[in-house]
């Protein structure tokens, strides 16, 4: 199933080496980056985890969801509500966030996977919209669009203060590292290869005896849970939980990051999140209409570079890029 002419073990080692190199560079960057930028990178890394989760479904399995904000928000509110109202510790909160995101993605996956193509996109969009509206409806607890702040005193894990900039940076690198290595392992495994086979030709994968529906469902659950972990981490590190993160816009962002960085590549989501975040950050200094950048990028990418930056590199330069 390796499908390449060079030895697969060699490629696996190269891929792992590349991932470790990226993690090393990120960890070292803190020493040279000015405060403002290390703050941004911490945020970008969490959004990159979100995009990596999205990419497993979109890039590797070929299912385009327009409703991942629901999973991101599930993780965020799972952690946020548990910490706010049950006063649990951050670690228990994280587990609550992951568990809730896994549950929501399992249900949504079960229902939405009865459809395909455009219908799948609209069904996921509608579920996410219903989720956002539910947050508004339960505004008494969720505080709706306004959101709520997780108190600084609560955001301490075993004496480790997450509100401190250095700690926050390294926790985000750690979480990113876990996610990247996990994704790297999944896509090189038999399971990951099967997802790609389903993306390339669903009928053939079914003919070969794979349980396509089960594989797709697992992909939705893993993807949704990883996106939810990003939401929970975002709430914990930046101390804010709000309904804005459940809007359509937050479903579009991971799609944009993945398209820009390169769908179906492990490093694409990071590249896309990094570029897009800075692009929007810079343009927001000049105009309030900063989302114009997102719109233009979406159109240009669909027109001229559907494989994204890392996709172009893989096609032209480094064939073994994971």
């Amino acid at each position, binding site marked *: 199933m390796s499908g390449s002419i060079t030895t697969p073990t060699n490629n696996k080692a190269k891929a792992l080496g590349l991932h470790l190199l990226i993690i090393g560079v990120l960890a070292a960057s803190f020493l040279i980056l000015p405060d403002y930028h290390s703050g941004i990178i911490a945020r970008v890394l969490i959004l990159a985890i979100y995009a990596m989760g999205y990419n497993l479904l979109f890039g590797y399995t070929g299912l*385009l969801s*327009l409703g991942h904000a629901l999973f991101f928000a599930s993780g965020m509110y799972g952690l946020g509500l548990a910490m706010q109202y049950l006063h649990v510790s951050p670690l228990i909160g994280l587990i609550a966030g992951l568990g809730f995101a896994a549950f929501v993605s399992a249900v949504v996956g079960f*229902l*939405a996977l*009865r*459809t395909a*193509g*455009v*219908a799948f*996109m*609209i*069904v996921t969009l*509608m*579920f996410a*919209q*219903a989720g956002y*509206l*539910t947050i*508004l*409806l339960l505004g008494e607890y969720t505080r709706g669009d306004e959101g709520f702040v997780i108190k600084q005193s609560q955001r301490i894990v075993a004496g480790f203060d997450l509100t401190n900039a250095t700690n926050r940076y390294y926790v985000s690198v750690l979480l990113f590292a876990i996610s990247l290595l996990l994704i790297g392992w999944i896509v090189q495994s038999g399971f990951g290869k099967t997802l790609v086979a389903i993306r390339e030709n669903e009928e053939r994968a079914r003919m070969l005896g794979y349980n396509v529906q089960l594989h797709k469902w697992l992909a939705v659950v893993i993807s949704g849970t990883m996106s939810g972990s990003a939401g929970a981490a975002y709430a914990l590190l930046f101390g804010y939980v709000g309904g804005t993160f459940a809007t359509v816009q937050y479903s*579009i962002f991971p*799609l944009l990051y993945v*398209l820009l960085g390169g769908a179906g590549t492990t490093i694409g989501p990071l590249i896309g999140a990094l570029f897009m975040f800075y692009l929007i950050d810079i343009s927001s200094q000049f*105009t*309030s*209409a*900063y*989302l*114009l950048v*997102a*719109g*233009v*990028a*979406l*159109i240009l*990418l*669909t*027109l001229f570079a*559907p494989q994204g930056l890392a996709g172009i590199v893989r096609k032209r330069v480094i064939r073994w890029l994971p």
Partner: protein
Amino acid sequence: MEFGPHLFLATLEGAIGAAVLALMAVGLSIVFGIMRVVNVAHGEFYMLGAVIAWWITSLIGGHPAYGFLAALIVAPLIVGLIAALADHLVLRRINYDPERTIVATIGLLYVLQQLTLMTFGADARPVEAPFNKRLALPWFENGADGLAMYWPWGLSTTTYKLAVIVAAIVVLVALWLLMTKTRAGLIMRATQLNRDMALAHGIPVEKVYALVFGLGAAIAALAAVLVVPIQQAHYLMGGDPLLLSFIVVIIGGLGSIPGTIVAAILIGMSDGIISVFFSPTLAKILATLLVAFVLIFRPQGLFGKRIS
């Protein structure tokens, strides 16, 4: 106000919403039916219609009716041209691939919305109605001395609101005649049935597509011009109507115009009535979930026929 008159008023407001929604959804529906394109930017074409209507009426002085009449003709034309241009520059180049089209129209949504924010600004701006006479409405009640007619306080509508309903019906009938009785309609239906066969018979499919995309956007713009004297023009006004027209088009059966109109009346009326008596958020949650479940369990829509 008592329950009866209140319900009557809610129904009337719902009917105005339904009329505008029917127009908007039919625009989305013909684009989907003929081109198999899900146009996520449809709400922005609606918004552009309202904004251009404001711009034209603010240019033309005199009686508000002159400016409004000009807007009624010019705004759909401009929006239609913008849409046809977008079709030519973007959609045609990606071969109307369904998923890439959705991503591209999401991009178009942001571009149109943000350009409007840069030029028109973030304020909501009103447009004066060409005529606006308040009409008090009577109510009948079976009292002590038989059926009596009286005029409840607050039970009223305006001539303009009633005119919106009439105008929407006129446009829908005209569109139906265009699709069923004219040569242009025949060509559009032929393209819908079989794109390749239409091309083989010398139908300029690319031109038909640009025209249909423009027509769909122009109908949305027209709906917005009709609505803007009741509701102000704002750069974010496209969101809710887009969601509602998606709901209508899916429940009515993708691409079916009669189904779309029936669903628009149903959804528009119930949205109006539920929003008055219950929470509007709850009404929207129920509607979005209904759409999701219709797509999952009855993809041909509630009123559509199953394609064998």
